């Protein structure tokens, strides 16, 4: 699959909103989950001390 240019890649043949809307939300949710886990761990350690 050769997209030719960044514009074509981002446009996704006119479906950019749907494709990138899916991938972006997935990425953000995963990063948020890992962030929440890091916070939960430091809170748990804080309560032990």
């Amino acid at each position, binding site marked *: 699959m050769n997209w030719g240019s960044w514009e074509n890649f981002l446009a996704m043949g006119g479906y950019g909103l*749907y494709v990138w809307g899916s991938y972006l939300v997935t990425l953000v949710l995963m990063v948020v989950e890992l962030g929440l886990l890091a916070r939960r*761990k430091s809170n748990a350690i804080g*309560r032990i001390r």
Partner: protein
Amino acid sequence: MSINWFKYSSPQTFFPLAGRLALGFGALAVLACAAGLYLGFFVAPTDAQQGESYRIIFIHVPAAWMSMFLYVVMAFWAGLGLAFNTRLSGMMASAIAPTGALFTFIALWTGSLWGKPAWGTWWVWDARLTSELILLFLYFGFMALQAAIDDPRRADKAGALLALVGVVNVPIIYFSVKWWNTLHQGASVSLTKAPTMAATMLAGMLVMSFAFWFYSIAAVLLRARCIMLERERSSDWAAQYARGAA
């Protein structure tokens, strides 16, 4: 040589192992994700009917698989805890629920964004979509029920009952496209017949499935570590760990 099967069944010994495993599976997740996205965006061809919109498949299908699979694993641990009263089982079930809910939401969200260009609607109340939405509510119900009960052992028991009753929904989701006339298409990949898609598309989807698997294992183990620290906060090993982490 005798194997001590219970060596890692106590939080004290499982905690450091879970940390190492989470790191390893996290690294595998990043590698598999990079490979899967490369296959999905640079190797797999454009779909003849759907154009580029089909590329949502590389996260939609793996997320939907994970949402169902994680529920079964959660119910398994919950049932094990209910039957044998093992400490770690309930912690594992609680650790799985939020990640399961995450993948259920991702499956619904990406499905909606795919449904608009493919079907002309964000949502329909067909059997597949509705039963997947019920799965999300089962995860939320499990988490809310456990959060509402202060005593962790009682929370585990109540949650286990809900998880086990709710597991009936998983085959309903899976077979919904066969049992009812749904707008959602039937399975493209199944154990009984050849996949109905191009080999490179299938490869991208499978590699992304592995990536989500590895991510789930890492996230669940990290959360299990938090739960162990919270529940065992008055134990010596937890105090020792907290001192070391300072």
